[in-house]
């Protein structure tokens, strides 16, 4: 770990000013920054501690919307009664993420800034080539161990999977991220690698996430998050799905459906093809399973991750079927 200077921001303006400095990185819960500093990926010149800024950890949720401060802890949001009632997929995504200890430390804003778990990205000493770390240096993952890598949104520059859970649910329900001067759809905040894998987020120097806002909807109220992995806890998703469902008055025709995927794409992945195929259709298992396959259009595998192409549609289908079973 390299020496760095430390600055504690007492208010959001001070944080924004400091964040504009070259080599500055924000410290909130620390669960990502400390980890990446230890493995040599993050080498901040200045660490700006925003964890003492007051008023940024509020959770204000109702049927209409959820407004969640950037410094709210993952565990607090997961446990919030209104979030559980009106946005169950958000709560479920959070409590299936990381471990209890990490959820008690990590913040919502920091969670959006979580970096990939690609082992090549995380080991600069042994794998100098990584387009995410050093633009144009190459990709060590392609041709290597790819069991956890993405099949959607990949490019020749990068196949690293977006690892988080919360953002998958946020993308499904059209949440926005508040950057102060700008508000962005979470879906647009995350960037697929294309030729510029080093740019993961649409965030500019001096911008600080202050909150996320999730609009309420019938689909958000009847929603779930299914996360599939070999280990029951404390593992990133092999594939996950956040799904919301709204039925017509007949109780079997789909009026609205939201589908987003985790663990299989380079960013939290909205599966609109599946949504479009199912809107207006009856809640029927064969129809659901067939439509779920549409999520994998354009998928590209690198050998060891081919199973994800078979797995992800099943996760979507099971999530929809689970919601269909609940009255």
């Amino acid at each position: 770990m390299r020496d760095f200077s430390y600055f504690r921001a007492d208010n959001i303006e001070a944080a924004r000013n400091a964040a504009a400095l070259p080599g500055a990185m924000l410290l909130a819960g620390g669960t990502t920054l400390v980890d990446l500093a230890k493995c040599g990926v993050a080498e901040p010149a200045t660490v700006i501690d925003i964890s003492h800024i007051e008023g940024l950890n509020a959770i204000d949720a109702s049927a209409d919307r959820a407004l969640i401060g950037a410094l709210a802890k993952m565990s607090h949001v997961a446990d919030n009664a209104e979030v559980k009632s009106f946005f169950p997929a958000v709560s479920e995504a959070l409590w299936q993420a990381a471990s209890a200890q990490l959820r008690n430390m990590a913040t919502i804003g920091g969670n959006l800034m979580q970096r990939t778990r690609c082992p090549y990205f995380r080991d600069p000493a042994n794998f100098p080539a990584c387009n995410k770390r050093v633009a144009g240096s190459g990709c060590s993952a392609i041709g290597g161990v790819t069991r956890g890598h993405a099949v959607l949104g990949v490019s020749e520059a990068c196949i690293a999977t977006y690892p988080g859970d919360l953002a998958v649910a946020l993308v499904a329900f059209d949440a926005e991220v508040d950057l102060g001067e700008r508000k962005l759809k979470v879906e647009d905040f995350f960037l697929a690698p294309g030729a510029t894998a080093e740019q993961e987020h649409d965030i500019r120097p001096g911008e600080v996430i202050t909150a996320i806002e999730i609009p309420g909807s019938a689909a958000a109220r009847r929603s779930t998050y299914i996360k599939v992995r070999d280990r029951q806890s404390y593992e990133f998703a092999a594939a996950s799905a956040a799904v919301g469902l709204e039925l017509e008055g007949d109780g079997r025709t789909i009026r609205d459906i939201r589908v987003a995927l985790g663990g299989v794409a380079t960013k939290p992945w909205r599966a609109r093809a599946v949504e479009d195929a199912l809107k207006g259709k009856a809640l029927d298992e064969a129809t659901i399973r067939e439509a779920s396959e549409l999520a994998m259009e354009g998928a590209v595998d690198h050998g060891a991750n081919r199973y994800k192409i078979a797995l992800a549609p099943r996760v979507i289908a099971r999530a929809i079927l689970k919601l269909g079973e609940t009255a």
Partner: protein
Amino acid sequence: MTVHDIKHAASDSARLEAVGGRLSRVDGPAKITGAAHYAVEQQLEGLTHAVLVGATIAAGKVTAIDTRAAETAPGVLAVLTPDTIMELRGASDWFGKAPAQPTFSPLVREVTFSGQHVAAVVAETFEQAVAAAALVKVWYDETPAIVDLSDGKAGDGIPIEAMTKEWGDAEAAFAEAPVRICAAYNTPREFQAAMEPHGLIARWEGDELTIWEPSQWLDGMARTYAEWFSIPFENVRLVSPYIGGGFGSKALALAHSAVAAAAAKMLDRPVKLVLNRPQNFTSYGGRAATRQTVAIGADRDGKIQSIVHRGVNETAVDGMWVEPLGSVTSIMYATPNFSSKQNVVRVNTVVPGAKRAPGENPSAFGIECAIDELAYELNIDPMEMRLINYAEQDPHAKKAWSTRQLREAFAAGAEAFGWARRSPQPRSMRDGHQLVGWGVAAGTYPVRRAHGEAVVKLLSDGSVVVESSSIDMGQGTYTILAQTAAETLGVPVENVTVKLGDSHFARAGVTGGSRLAGVMTGAVHKAAGQALDELIGLALSDPRSPFQKLQSNTLVVRDGRIASPRGEGPELLIAELMSAVGRDHIEAKGDTLPASTTPEERYKNYTTIAMSIPHTEGDYSRHSWCAHFVEVRVDEDFGTVRVSRVVSALDSGRLYNPKLAESQWKGGIIMGIGQALLEEGIVDRRHGRIVNGNFADYMLPTNADIPDIQTISVGIPDPHSSALGGKGVGELAIVGIAPAIANAVFHAKGKRVRDLPITLEKLI
């Protein structure tokens, strides 16, 4: 040296403190309150910190090392390279065999595996050392590496003749058998993954070296340090107060240990070196990857006619590890014809090492899956298949079992599990989207025996101190030795203090192969018996003793009080007698060696494994046995496997402390669940490098992965295995869990997975 106050620990049942009582671990309170200080937590004046630089190639030469930037970095005291580290003498191996090379450099110029130590930085603080280590630049001349067993360059390997076991004509009998199965079973590279990382503090005072290091073998490691630095064995003091998990990995002094001790000598300052988590995956060997082929020929009624077994394990380019793959294959079932042969293949890895039940564990995976396949082939219940082929004696050694309660284990396990309600057809049991499967497998581990010594001191206040250089890595040594001394001497267990983990105490051999409890209870029993004899002798013969005029032949000690057997005459506390006869202590050293043993033989006994006693010595073949019954749920869409129930019935002979034995069995079962479903060192085949060497990516089971586990003891005292009748506990229960799970997965899903771990993509 560590002392535990037992007064607060005694809480359970009536006969808690006797051997066989369920006394709680006496070291437990110190561990859960943080009062237990582990080896590298010692606070020393002037302590410096060393950090290693590992090779980024798997094969080749170091051509140059640029240390200038590191040397001028803040706080740096030294940058060590193969050119600048002091030369050490080669040390003999754990059999006591002389080294191939007269000298030894723990930092290398010739790289044979990725992560091998090529340089080290010593600085005033840990952070300074980490920062400076990143500044060391190394240039290499890289050559092609053999990355694993499936590498085209690996070849068939080296036949290990000593592993060949044959009787009858196995190949011919297999060819003629009416029913035949033949399949290949693979296990990946696995790691011990102890919570406490490897590391040490080394301090020199003149030519005396003190090492604080977690150790499963103080005397063996002290001997290695002595040989490296050409100092007398007695000049090395190894201190290992607590061990945060070893699982076989902490029995040897390793290259990083030598770097720290050499740096301390060169700088004349104490040096602390702790491997970071990725280095714990490359600085010492885990379980070698294995490949086995098992062919079984049988009659139509299920009676085995022949077993043909071939095995391969990986070893290092510059080190030999043989994982005995035919060890269970050759003894579990009766067969008139048998053949087992094994090769080892050199690959560019750190030399593999011992991980819980080396040999027996992968061996059981092969044979216990294969017999399950035979059972389905013949439509015979898998447990019945095992009973049809029950070995009434050791089929290989042709000797009687000392004890073998395996039939009893199957009966008790099946009853508790409800095996009779099993639906025989695969895919025939279901709970919603979960396919439910039941599987069974047996396990075994040999009774490894050795010799140990212990000192028992009776102090003037009636308290007792037991000293031994053996160790407690969580299995309960502190506790069972206190129970043994208390029972033998007739004193309350809270009067006994056990001191372990210091090589200056009475000697002990390696804590491995599930041998410590049997060896050390025997040594403590003997030493305590001698102390008791001396106490009673004093009481009967000393003119100042009130018992002297009784003219009795003997006295009894119960609850710390001495009296005549029939109760006539006085009754004295031990302290009162000691005071009456004017003694401040009685000390006895007991060992289990023959009286004729020479000092050289004693040294060899404690510092090598050359004098272990074969488990088939004399008229008997000695083993622990178990039967595992497992329920799994396989998601029909996702391929994920969860273990929902485990019932295991185990024969470890007499249990010295059932509570601690059950805990060890459950630990083995949990480790077996990880092996079956999760654990795998994943190698980037382009670079020969482990890419998941950390606890986020090397999958170990969490609490959420572990169901309720029921263990049932079916053992009986085995007088041929140990002084007090126990057999091995620590390693037994992991043997057979992985095949039981694989067999249950087949029953659930109808798909046979023969490559561990059974991850979801294999079942999609």
